[in-house]
Each structure stands twice: as structure tokens, then as C-alpha cells.
């Protein structure tokens, strides 16, 4: 059994939300933990660590991915966007963020960052989705609080903005 945690560390350089970071990490460190622990970007949440809940969804070179199913070792030289990188400023929110507020599309807020990142990427591909398309696109993000009604409203609302 391999329990020595010192499988030689490796260095990664990565751009997150436009800022470049260089860190030396254990190969086994999950990307989600890297963002939360190494970079202090705690807006990316961990809900299941096996790719089902979607709370840890971020953009990897512009595409949504599960940060709990990638190792930080894999991001060297890539560009990431997390929920913290979406808004211009507290006053200037991303349309999807604003739509979530306007439509009461969140309650406890824990799944919200993942849902917003997924919705944002989805709307980039499809700027006029049907309700069915939205529901399918969001099926990889579990929200336990809202029952999805207002999330679906928010996404189609954001599509119009």
C-alpha cells in the first residue's frame, strides 16, 4: 500500500481569473483543493468528490469541468476561470449572476457557483435555449434547495440579456 505522501512534489504555473500563480504541490492534490487551499479561492465548492453534484464546476481553458476530477498537476500552463472571476465588480455582476439574484434562483447558495459556471458556459454555446434544453444542460448540477424552477427561469432570463 502506498501511504508515503511524499511522492515527489511538482511545480505548476497556472492562470486563474487572469492572474498567474506558481505553486509546488503533491501530485495527488485535487484541482478543487488546489483552488480552495493553495489559492484561497473558496467559491469553488466540494459536494461529492466523484463528479455527480457539480458544485466544483469551473472553466478549464474556457470549458466547464469538474475540478474534483482533475489533479492540480494537470493544469500547468492552462487557464482557469472560477466563480470569483466572473463579475467585473460587486456592482457589475455577470448577467447570469444578476439573473440568479433577480429570479431567486438560490437559497443556501452552496451549489450556486457550480450552477452559474455551467449556465454561463451553456449560454455561450446556446443563446436562446428551450426549457427542456436548459434542464438537460443543468442536469449535472444538483441543487437541493430550489427545486430548479427559479434556476431555469434565471437561465432563460440571462439568455435574453
Amino acid at each position: 500500500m502506498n501511504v508515503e505522501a511524499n511522492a515527489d512534489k511538482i511545480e505548476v504555473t497556472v492562470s486563474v481569473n487572469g492572474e498567474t500563480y506558481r505553486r509546488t504541490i503533491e501530485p495527488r492534490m485535487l484541482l478543487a483543493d488546489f483552488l480552495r487551499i493553495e489559492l484561497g479561492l473558496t467559491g469553488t465548492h466540494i459536494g461529492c468528490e466523484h463528479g455527480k453534484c457539480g458544485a466544483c464546476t469551473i472553466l478549464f481553458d474556457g470549458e466547464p469541468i469538474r475540478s474534483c476530477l482533475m489533479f492540480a498537476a494537470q493544469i500547468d500552463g492552462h487557464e482557469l476561470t472560477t466563480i470569483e472571476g466572473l463579475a467585473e465588480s460587486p456592482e457589475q455582476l455577470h448577467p447570469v449572476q444578476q439573473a440568479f439574484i433577480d429570479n431567486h434562483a438560490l437559497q443556501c447558495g452552496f451549489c450556486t457557483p457550480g450552477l452559474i459556471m455551467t449556465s454561463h458556459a451553456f449560454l455561450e454555446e446556446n443563446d436562446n435555449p428551450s426549457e427542456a434544453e436548459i434542464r438537460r444542460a443543468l442536469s449535472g448540477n444538483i441543487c437541493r434547495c430550489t427545486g430548479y424552477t427559479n434556476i431555469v427561469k434565471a437561465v432563460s432570463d440571462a439568455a435574453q440579456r
Partner: protein
Amino acid sequence: MTGEKWVGKRLERKEDLRFVTGHGTYTDDVTLPGMLHAAMVRSPHAHAKIKSIDCTKAQALPGVHAVITGEDAKKYWGPLPKSVDIDMKIPTVFALAVDKIYYMGEPVVAVAADTRYLAEDAVDLIEVEYEPLEIVVDTEKALAPDAPLLYPEWGNNIQCEWGMSVGPVEEIFAKADHVFEDRIPHHRYSGVPIEGRAALADYDPYNRSLKLWCSTQTPLIVRTLVAQTFDFPEHDVQVIAPDVGGAFGNKIQADAEVIPCLLSMITGRPVKWTESRQENLLSGIQCRDYVWNIKIAVDNDGTLRGLKGEVLGNVGKDGTCHAAGAGKFLVACAYLPGPYKWQAYETNTKVVVSNKAPSGAYRGYGKDIANYPMEIMMNRIADKLGISAVDLRKKNMIEADEFPYQQISGPIYDSGDYHLCLDKALDLIDYDEVRARQAKQNGKDGKYIGVGIGSMLEPSGGAVPMCIFNSYEVATVRMMPEGGFHVLTGHQNIGQGIETTLCQVVADEMACTPDDVRIIFGDTNAVPYGLGPWSSRGATFNVSCVVEAARKLKTNLLEVCANIWQCDGAELEFQGGAVVHKSDTIRRMTLKEIGNQTHLFPGAFGVVPESVSNPFEATHYWTSPVAFWKPDELGRISLYTTHPSGSSAVVVEVDTDTGKITVLDIAMCEDIGTLINPTICEGQVQGGYVQGIGGALLEELEYDEYGQLLNTDLTSYLHPLASDVPDVKVVHIQSPSPFTPLGTKGGAEGGTLMSCAVVVNAVEDALRSFDVKISDLPLTPERVKGLLNAAQAKRDARKTERERKTAPEKTPVEV
């Protein structure tokens, strides 16, 4: 002119900005210098003796700072304190197993290491030898005389029994035209919030204090329980509940949360434990899991006469110490009669322990247990009597002019219009149109539409005797020198939006805007003792004490102004962010000016009259005006202050080829009295309703006969996804409660506690032509297909039977 009113407005939530930008702070987001991480060895066995534990390899692993077994932990703590004890047997249970394992996933050894990764490495190195014991998981088998016992000293597996009998039960059952009876089981599942449990403990030996960040609904209750567990001075414990990522009743106790506290005491360093999803499913608080045996006496015209209900509840390892699960079955017995009128009622419950995880609260806490069998029986009885399920309900519902109404089981229903709720729900789903569509479509292409209806009671604000959840609430409203307000409350934001709704309430009282108010919560060192959000009690208890505290402060401030202006306080009023003289409106002092004058220049001494005890803040203790614990002459008690109600309808489509169910439409009308923020209230129904649908169709914590949990990840524990449900349509009617200052009632559970029955009714309705009767949940495609096959087989058998006989057989009346 009167100022703008905020209660009733669809205000955007003040808390949302931090959540949508990723700047919320959940417990796992908190990091302290020198912080260690906890992980636990969990038993793979459901029932076993611990023969030996070898931690040497783990202790030797660099970066590991503490490894402790349940036996060693007894030096630091005692058993988990009970949180409910209504004539219940209280087992001696510890947060880390001592000698014996009671369920799969029970923590056996705890580790603290530099990282969670390392902590899990250490867990791998710990070798535990078990001696398996005979296992009991099934509720009814647990009652067998030869069943293996969890606590041999009890002599059986029953943690508590309770019952009551009101009215001439036997006589009514003897006289009634029909007696319908059924056995109605319900499976185990739970809230499974996306943020599991999390606790960060920081014991400071130099300050002799313990600080605990914790994802909980009830920071003050957790403080008390932690202090009791360690016999540690409660005044030296501080619990901080930051943002909470969903709770639903699962987070109202100190269970595994005491383990990081223990590790912090041992290491003298902060220790964080963040529950993994696997841990959450194995030992996070579980719920439901019961079976009813129910009998209803009814006349030909559909008049309900008598009700007998016996419920067997399965609380797993225990329902009093790890969590307060046992109490929900008493609530179930109190509310089985529901919104209907009865002449006789008899009920009893047996709460059974078994080799499953401990049982606690999950959205409903017994009201769901009461609602589920009753609403299913209503539909089945209507079928048998050949009257519509709508008419049967309406015929027996308490009339709008009968409130306050004391239910036969004791509770006093405050207000409502059950008939109107039902009508509105039917309109919302376009009931007649659906029936027409159903008549047209069913039978074609193997797809069958069904519509289910149901009604519910959502008792809000339980005041349970002999229980730490005994209900009262305290709030302080405090004015700043600059004129703004703080509300200090033991309530907690768990997503239900108190940072917005309470501001709306105070803004109305103080004639200011919600932005002039901030809610201070989640820090036991800052707020008065309060019990937090559970039992949908916020709008009943919390809102009420905040309103009363604000009114007290208001009176004091009017006195101050009257003193300044040398007039009578009665001539003054709060208006548009100021105090004004009703007749002489030139006299106007803004809240800021009042704050300045009382606090700063000239200062309290100059402006505050002797009659005013405290111009800066007011505290109010609010408790139920109607709940009573002292049993009345019939031995009945009344535990809930307000009684929200509602009805809903669901349309489903069943694919008889595959057994797959699609939910096509959902509509609910709820009556929670005065609405503070309609948008938020609707959100509670929408989210709640979908949770109930999850229970009906998808979610299950299934144990096999060896006590092995089969759903240890989210590929096997199935939350509803966006693609599994349609929009949830919601309307509210408002029958203000006479028992709360604003007429508000709680509204967090109604959707969840009723939707399960409504879905089952819809499916039975869809498959009426197959004469399918649903028993086991969830309604997996396989299960539904199985029912259809069985129905087909039965039908064929009957056919051949009929061909043999000449006389058609007479079918008995029971369901």
C-alpha cells in the same frame, strides 16, 4: 401619509450577492494557522464487537498528530447527551464506538494530521479486528422475540412506546358502514444537503476556551451539547455558524461534530473535519423509515367516523442521543387526523432500534409521517366508495368558520381555509382539462396519465416537552448611534432568507428601510440564547420575538422624543425614517438624530426620561400562547402554535413498457398566513416539493440484510435533477394566525411533507385500469414494472377463474 410597507414585498435577498460571486463563507472555507485535518476509521460491519485496534503504524506516519480510539476518548468526554426524553430509553452511546459497533459506517478511530490526504492515509494504516454479531435491520423483524438486541439491557429493541385513545373508538368502528385498513410502509432517506457536515474546532489551553465553527442550524443548542459532552463550562464555549450549505433538519445536533473538538483538545491545535459524501450518506443524519397499520371507519356517504393508526418507526442505532429522531413518531401520532374531522381516534407507536445509522430530523419531522398514509387512504377510500377524492376530502375537512379548532388528538388549529386551498390547487393544475386529457390518452401507446391530489397540515414551531427543542425564542433589537439597527438572534440563515425577511419585518416596525437593518446571527458570543430554525418555526417564533422587541424599542424611543419635545408619547409616531408629531409635523427627528442625541450629544443623561429603562436596545422573549404540555382530561397535549395548511396536485405519466414515471405538472396552494416575502415563500414550496418527489421516485438509503448500506455515493443515492421535474406552480392564500403578532406561520415543510403521497396517488390514478396498489417506495421503474406484471398476472388468473365459475365473485369492501 403612512410610510412604505415592507412586509409582503418581493424583495431581492440581501444575502445573494456574496453567494453568486463565490464570497459566501461556509465552514470548510474557514482556515486557521496551524490547522489540522480529521479523518475517521469507520466500521465496515453493521453489528460487531471490537476485538482489537492497532494504531501503531498510523501513529508512526509523519504528519500525523493524534490517533484516538473510542476507549481512550472516554478520558476526555462522556456519552452523547440526550436531546429528547419523553419516557424513552436512553442508551449510552459515544461519538466514537466503544467495544461495540451498531451500524455500518460508525466512527471507530479518529485521526488528526497535517492534511486530509494524510489523515486518510493514516486511517488506511489502522487495523481493527471485529467479531461480527447477528444483525437486525428490518423494523418488524427487530420486534420478533428472538431478534438480536442492540442494547441487551433493554430486553427488546423498543426505544419508546406511546399512544392515546379519544372517543368511543370500538363503538364507532362497530357501527360504521365500512372499515378500510391498510399497511403503509415508507422507506429511509434524508436531506443529504450538498454541503455535508463540517466542523472546525479550536481549543485554546491558554484561554481555557473552545471555539467551534460548525455547519449547523442551531449554534446555541450545539454549544450546550458540546459543553455537556465534555463536561466543559458552557460559558467558555463559542460556536460560530457561518453560511450553511443546506440543512433541512439534518444539522440540529452535536454528533460527529464533537470529534474535531476532541482532537483539538488533544493536539492543542485547530482541527477541521469536513464530512465526505460517503461519510454523509453512511452516518450523516438519516430519516423516514416507518410502517403504518391504519384503519379508518367511514359511512357510505363518505363521512369519516373513526381512525386507528399504529406506526412502527425505525431509528437505527438510536433516536435520542446522536440525534432526536424518536420524537417524530409522537408528532406523527398527534397529527395523523390531519385537516379532517373525526369522532374517535386511537393511535400508538413503537420506536424501534436497529443496525442502521442513527435517525434524526428531516423536513417534516413526523408531519410527513402523518400526512403520507392519511392522504393515500383518502384516495383509496374514495375509489372504493365510488366518490371523487376531492369530494371526500371536502366533505370531511374542517370548515373555514370553525377556527380555532381543537383537533381530536389535541392540537389547536389556528386558522385556515382548507376548501379554498384545495380548489386553488385544482384550478392551478387545470384539473378538469387533465381528466379530459387522461380519458383521451390513457390506453394508447402504453403511456398512462394520472393526476394525484392531496391536502396537508404543516404545524409550525414545535414546542416539544422533555426535549431541547422545547421552543421559545429571544431577540434583541439594537439601535446604533447613527440610527441603524441590529437584530441579534439565535436564529440561523440556512438558505431560507432571514437576512432579508427579518429586515423587512423590522423596517416596518421602525419605519425605516431594510437596508437600515442588519441581522446578527451565527455567533453564540454575540446573540441571546435561541433555538434556531427547525420545525418551520422562524415565521412563528423568531419573527414574533423580533417584532415584539422592535415594538418595545419603539415605545422607548417615542418616550425619549416626547421627553425632548416635552409632549406626550402618544402624540408621536414613527414615519418615513423619523419620529414625527402627528398634529405638528414640523416636529420631526430622523432616526439618525435620535441615535445621535441618545448616544452622543447631548447623550442619554440629557434626553432619556427615567421612565425609559433602556433607549438603546430592547429584548423580547416570545413563547407560544397556545401550546400546552399539561395533558388535558383526555391526556392530550398541544405542541404547535400555528397550523399552516395546503393542497396540491401532480400530473404524472407512466410508461407501462418500462415502468418509468415522468412528472408532468406540479401545483400547490399553501396557506401560511401573512407572507413576509412571497418570492421566498414560493421558493420554500418549490424546493420542498421536489425533495418529496425525490423521496417518492428516486431517493433511498437502502440496507441489505447484512446491514450494508447500498447507497454510499451520488451515483446510487439519487437526488432529483433539473431534468427530473417540471416547474412547480405555487399560489398562496393568507389566513393570518391569531396567535402571532403579524399573523405569520412557518412555511418550510409543506411541500416536502405532502408531495410523496400526492405522487403515489397520481401513479395509482394513472394505473387505475390495472388496479395497481403501491406499497414500497421509491417508485423505481423496476418496481412499477413489477407491479404492472403482477397486476397482469392477477388479471389473467381472475379471467380464467371467471370462465370456470358462472356466478361472478363478490369482492369484499376493504381496500
